[in-house]
């Protein structure tokens, strides 16, 4: 084989290796970012629940209105979800609240960093909303917020380690693949 060809092969291998390692590390970084994102989305949700509770407790605002307010003031990942749900509730299309809530959770929140268990928790919130007693409604929202804060505490405690693990796995996976392919 010509010397030039060998050089060319080596260059291709190096470029390939760099690409594989780069892609693998990027996946690791992306997964780490999703872990961080999940915690922050859980916090956003907790805040939204507290706001909803405040609206119900002090102003007895109806849910379509209270959720529309959440959509206006909320700038995070749930703004679209709240906007769609409140618009649909205000239409009185003949679909019950828990159906609308569940359906939109599955459709819209799929794009967030929440995992399947979190999304099921959000979907189940729809079953708790709209009860006949203000006190009961507040209590259920408080209970949900408490559960959420437990989840947030657990997520933030492990967040750093898991992010580090994801990044390290990404880089090391890339190295391993590169070695294997070479």
């Amino acid at each position, binding site marked *: 084989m010509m010397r030039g060809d060998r050089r060319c092969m080596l260059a291709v291998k190096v470029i390939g290796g760099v690409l594989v390692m780069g892609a693998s590390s990027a996946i690791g970084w992306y997964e780490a970012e999703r872990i961080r994102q999940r915690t922050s989305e859980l916090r956003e949700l907790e805040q939204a629940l507290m706001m909803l509770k405040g609206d119900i407790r002090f102003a007895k605002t109806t849910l379509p209105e209270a959720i529309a307010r959440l959509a206006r003031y909320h700038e995070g990942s749930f703004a679209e979800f709240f906007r769609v749900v409140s618009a649909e509730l205000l239409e009185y299309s003949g679909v019950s*609240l828990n159906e609308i809530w569940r359906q939109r959770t599955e459709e819209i929140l799929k794009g967030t960093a929440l995992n399947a268990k979190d999304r099921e928790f959000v979907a189940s919130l729809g079953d708790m909303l*709209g009860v*006949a007693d203000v006190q009961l409604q507040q209590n259920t929202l408080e209970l949900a917020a408490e559960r959420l804060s437990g989840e947030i505490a657990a997520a933030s405690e492990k967040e750093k380690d898991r992010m580090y693990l994801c990044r390290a796995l990404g880089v090391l996976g890339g190295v391993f693949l590169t070695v294997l392919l070479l």
Partner: protein
Amino acid sequence: MSRREDLLKIFPLGLRGLLKTAVEDFEELQEIRLRVQAPVLLIYDNREYFLSRSGRMDRKRDSAYIVSKEEMCETLEYVGGYSLYAFEEEMKQGYITIAGGHRVGIAGKVILDGGRVRSMKNISFINIRLSHQKKGCADRVLPYLWRGKSICHTLIISPPGCGKTTLLRDIIRQLSDGNAERTGMQVGVVDERSEIGACYLGVPQNDLGIRTDILDCCPKAEGMMMLIRSMAPDVIAVDEIGLSEDIAAIRYAIGCGCRLIATVHGGSMDEIRQKPLLGDLVRQRTFERYIMLGDAHGRGTVEEIYDERGSSLYVGG
């Protein structure tokens, strides 16, 4: 959104479709009664009909549409705007006013707290009374209520369901708006049962005129005092007076220079004279006009108008 749409949107999709096809003229529909595991009843033009499964109004029970428990729950969810907690106080009274001014009466298992009604659950009976504002129904009456430039203290008397509130509503609207001959007056309304203005989330669903202030869901006696202090009305309007504190508040309001338009349940002038406290007001000639309504010649017919001495000014029929 029209009143028909406001009404239909409280029903589950199935019932919504049936009602749409069954009811030709929603202006003639007076009541819709839902009971779990029982037929849907419609009171239309003073007659009772069953809502049939094929979407017609039927006199026969065999083909009647039966309401399920789920449909009842769904209806209640829509009645409360998905937020029954926001209507907790109304539920204690046993009714909720919805958009369009329609009134939804509810019955079920009552939850007590210290002997007082706290809430209701397992609601299995719903009665929807449709609100119909009849603009212009006071046209024939109003000329009799003026004495010079001032409106007389007026009491509208009729048995239940004969159109007292409808007439009062139109008197309020016309006094408030005014016309080419008379300028509008500031009217204060104490709407204890949310029937006059039919406020939904603070917004009156009935047209009560441009110069009308409404104290919604407020006890009459307290409300009259509040209005006098806060809104300086020329006229105060209240529905269904009767309690001793109402009578005291009426005296106070009249003493403050307000004109008063009120309604009361009753079959005749004599019956009103015999009422313990209200009778005193009649004998003292506090009211200057009495409008008697009846249903012998159709709902809301003005049968007679009297002045303070009991002399008849108008005989209808």
